[in-house]
């Protein structure tokens, strides 16, 4: 038996010979993290995977219209923002993210435990903090309110 993953219409599909299981990309990420854990992959490697996934996502969000984008970050929980700002501390994407937040919200985020100190396990952080943020984006896409573009593309 083998399972082959592919992306179709913004969803992850796992196929074996006869069946296809569909899940969100974020659930796929969670599966990858669980798999890494079982296979004894170094935690650093797993964190790198999560960061790369979220870097692409955030870069793509930066291509949205300014109102949709600010609304989206405004609706994100303080924990999710704290987690993202901690992950990308000192990186250009953190700066871009800050530019979409009000000064008040930035100070609130900076007081969050998730921003200040050591992190929970990757799985906990994904399921409890980041999943609601991602699912909200996913819903907006399905409702046709936003469209994620390839951040490696050429834009004007």
């Amino acid at each position: 038996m083998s399972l082959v993953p592919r992306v179709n219409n913004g969803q992850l599909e796992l196929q074996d010979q006869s069946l296809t299981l569909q899940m969100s990309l974020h659930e796929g990420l969670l599966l990858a993290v669980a798999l890494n854990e079982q296979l004894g992959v170094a935690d650093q490697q797993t964190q790198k995977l999560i960061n790369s996934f979220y870097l692409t996502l955030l870069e793509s969000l930066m291509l949205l219209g300014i109102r949709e984008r600010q609304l989206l970050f405004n609706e994100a929980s303080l924990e999710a923002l704290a987690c993202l700002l901690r992950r990308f501390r000192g990186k250009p994407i953190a700066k871009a993210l800050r530019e979409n937040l009000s000064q008040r919200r930035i100070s609130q985020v900076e007081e969050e435990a998730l921003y200040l100190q050591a992190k929970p396990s990757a799985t906990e952080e994904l399921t409890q903090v980041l999943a609601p943020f991602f699912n909200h984006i996913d819903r907006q896409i399905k409702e046709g309110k936003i469209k994620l573009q390839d951040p490696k593309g050429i834009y004007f």
Partner: protein
Amino acid sequence: MDISINTSAEQLEFILGPCRASLNLNQAKALESQLAEVLLNALHEQPNYWQDLTAQLESSKAILSSLANLDSQQIVQVMQEYHQPHWLPLVRFTQKEQPELAKRLLNAIGQIKSPIFTSLEEFTNQLNTEPASSIAEVVVALEFLQPFIQALNPTPLNEAETTNQLANKPSFNTRATTFLTNLSELPHSNLRLILKGLSGKELVLVFSACKMLEITHFLTQLQSILPEKNYQQLENKSQARVEETELRSLLAKLSQELKDLKKLLNNRKK
């Protein structure tokens, strides 16, 4: 969805929501590397997608120079006839390539007083707030610009340009042939609506152009759409040759009619 994995002896047991799966170590490792790859590329287009578009943009951006050669009144005319959703990618790209021309485009938009168009203020707002315009939208916007500029093409000033134009002629005729052939393949009811928007003189031009370019399918269509008497009249008035300037403006008119029709059909769908 509940996602968990348990390892037992040689197998990894997956619980994926309502599904169960078990993989051996090698299969699990294969899944792990494929999964990472697929997840990280989920938002990326196919490898050649952006290169191909860049090449297309390179070959179609010369049209901006033709646009810059028009006088202000002509630019207003082009923007007015041009499909409004293309304004945004066109102006954004022009701001980067030819900032002076971009100012003239904005100025032209400001001069369009018709309420069906976005005002300059609204448009400037869109420039700052709408999602980034992808190169794909720019390529389409530039392609759509072509017929409008061709329709306004000023008469050549010197011999060099005349020769140049003559050299261009076969390719323009090819484009005209493609366009008219495509038009002739529309359903009768749609083609009839387009023809309705034309003056008698323009209908004669369509007839002549189809004769010159040997687009017999269009003529057959005309014969079945028009009453016998009108068809005969057109045939009698038609000529075997059409001047290029006339052909260009006819094509611009037809593509505008086609666009209006599409808009009409879209509105009906809503």
